[in-house]
């Protein structure tokens, strides 16, 4: 048993200011709680803070992501002559930028934040877990915009594809971004060790690269199944379909709906994982 005097004589301790209100039982009545931070303002604050990190730390990585995708397209130029296969190469290479940043980097970020004790900072603030996860995911999805656009435009020029439907990226980036960022955040927060978080992020990125860039017609059945299970595939398909002479917008919408659905589920899982990681 610890030796703790219940109450010191008043002379020994400096007189503390009057204690809080007391109820009949002699216990201190519960004090009023300070207000909670609301979801949208705190999401905006996290988003802004994360975006500012891009200036400091992320710009070199964005260059890497973009050069990597541009390099892949130049390489594939020698293999793929044009037509339907070129659609997948350009769409796949563009989505790889999203996968690199949202899945790989976000998984690393959350893994490192959790193991360095950085999560304690957020966990001792009255902020909804969803605001931290969504704010970070939204910021990482935003980092991908310039790289994805550069890759898409370069690819269209390289393979002689029309630039007219490039606007569809306005929907594809946030939806694929949400799905992949949610997955990345969940990997980072659930991995038992930070190296595993990095590994999972890298594996997800490699899968998005191999299964997204290569045209699906040449793949064996089992690989095609794996491709169908990867959320980035639906982003690639949605974007690739818009290169057709007369795009079937219903399919494009269905593909994007799948991305959105996966996004909602993976972000919900990431939010749950955050709660779990915050209180151990």
């Amino acid at each position, binding site marked *: 048993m610890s030796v703790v005097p219940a109450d010191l004589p008043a002379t020994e301790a400096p007189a*503390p200011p009057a204690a809080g209100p007391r109820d009949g039982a002699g216990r201190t009545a519960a004090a009023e709680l*300070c207000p909670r931070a609301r979801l949208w303002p705190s999401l905006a604050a996290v988003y802004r803070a994360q975006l500012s990190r891009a200036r400091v730390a992320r710009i070199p990585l964005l260059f890497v992501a973009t050069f990597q995708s541009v390099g892949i397209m130049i390489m594939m130029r020698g293999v793929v002559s044009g037509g339907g296969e070129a659609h997948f190469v350009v769409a796949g290479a563009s989505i790889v930028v999203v996968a690199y940043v949202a899945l790989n980097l976000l998984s690393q970020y959350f893994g490192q934040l959790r193991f360095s004790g950085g999560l*304690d*900072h957020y966990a001792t603030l009255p902020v909804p877990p969803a605001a931290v996860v969504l704010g970070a995911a939204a910021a990482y999805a935003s980092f991908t915009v310039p790289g994805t656009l550069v890759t898409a435009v370069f690819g269209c020029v390289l393979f002689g594809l029309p630039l007219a439907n490039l606007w569809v990226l306005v929907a594809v980036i946030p939806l694929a971004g949400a799905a992949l960022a949610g997955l990345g955040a969940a990997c980072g927060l659930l991995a038992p060790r930070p190296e595993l978080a990095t590994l999972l992020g890298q594996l997800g990125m490699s899968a998005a690269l191999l299964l997204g860039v290569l045209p699906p017609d040449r793949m064996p059945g089992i690989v095609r199944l794996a491709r169908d299970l990867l959320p980035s595939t639906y982003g690639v398909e949605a974007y690739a379909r818009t290169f057709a002479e007369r795009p079937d917008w219903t399919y494009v919408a269905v593909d994007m709906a799948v991305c959105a659905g996966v996004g909602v589920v993976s972000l919900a899982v990431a939010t749950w994982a955050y709660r779990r990681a915050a*209180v151990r």
Partner: protein
Amino acid sequence: MCAVRGLTKTYPAARGRRGTPGTPEVRATDDVALDVRRGEIFGLLGPNGAGKSTLVRQLTGLMRPDHGTVEILGHDIVAHPERAARLLAYLGQEAGALDELTVSLAAETTGRLRGLDVARARAERDAVLEELGLTAIAGRALKKLSGGQRRLACFAAALVGERPLLVLDEPTTGMDPVARRAVWSAVDRRRAERGTTVLLVTHNVIEAETVLDRVAVLDGGRVIACDTPAGLKERVSGEVRVELVWRERAPLEVPEVAALRERAVESGRRWTLRLAPEEARAAVATVTGGAAFTALDDFTLATPSLEDVYLALGGAARQGLVKA
């Protein structure tokens, strides 16, 4: 204000991996009971591994205890850990979440996540940065700052968005005297103006003696004493600490020195002795004369500090408390 009863947390034994031995079960906090009163600066003092940070993590709702209760301002924190964030501000040892932000954005964002609106968060940010003398470096990223400046910036973030309880885990690590003074005057101002209570984790004896109203001494997860610093020091008031530093080695051929050796804690060329005043006088007379004096590099004679209290209470760690 903050009442802790029977708080116990055991880390389970870890199985060893190939090449590394497993670690046994560790009881990080063992039946801890504390009462922190409103408006006081209450300290948790102990060497590394004494269980200070584990205790604080349980008080801030970051860790669930195995047994025991924590009540802060009438709220049960074990049952409702999420309420802790609405009652207290916590300065942890890590700055990972803020490292890549500028000082100004770190403070503003933290304020907004404490529920302030934009205008209020900016006004408080400016006031706190000014108060702590950080305005000149407000635009620099935390990770580009020196350790002490970074710590001060994290402390600033902890102050934005007022809370009735501040939990500070070694807030002044790495700080120069100017920054330390800024921290303690900011704490004093809040205490005088708003009755803010401070729970301070430290292993710095001098700091504990100068700033704390009361201190709980932790060792091996247990509270071994809890009193005012003066009250604790009274327990060992019959002792004087003598430190001897030898030039190369102790002159053991002098019989009096050889006799002193049995009572000394040796650390390289330094001997630390805790003696009754008349014994201390005799010891000093011995080493300042004759053969012993030529071998002596330096000596000090001091009244007991909280470190002596810690050792007198049976603290297991021989070294570990910082005297700076």
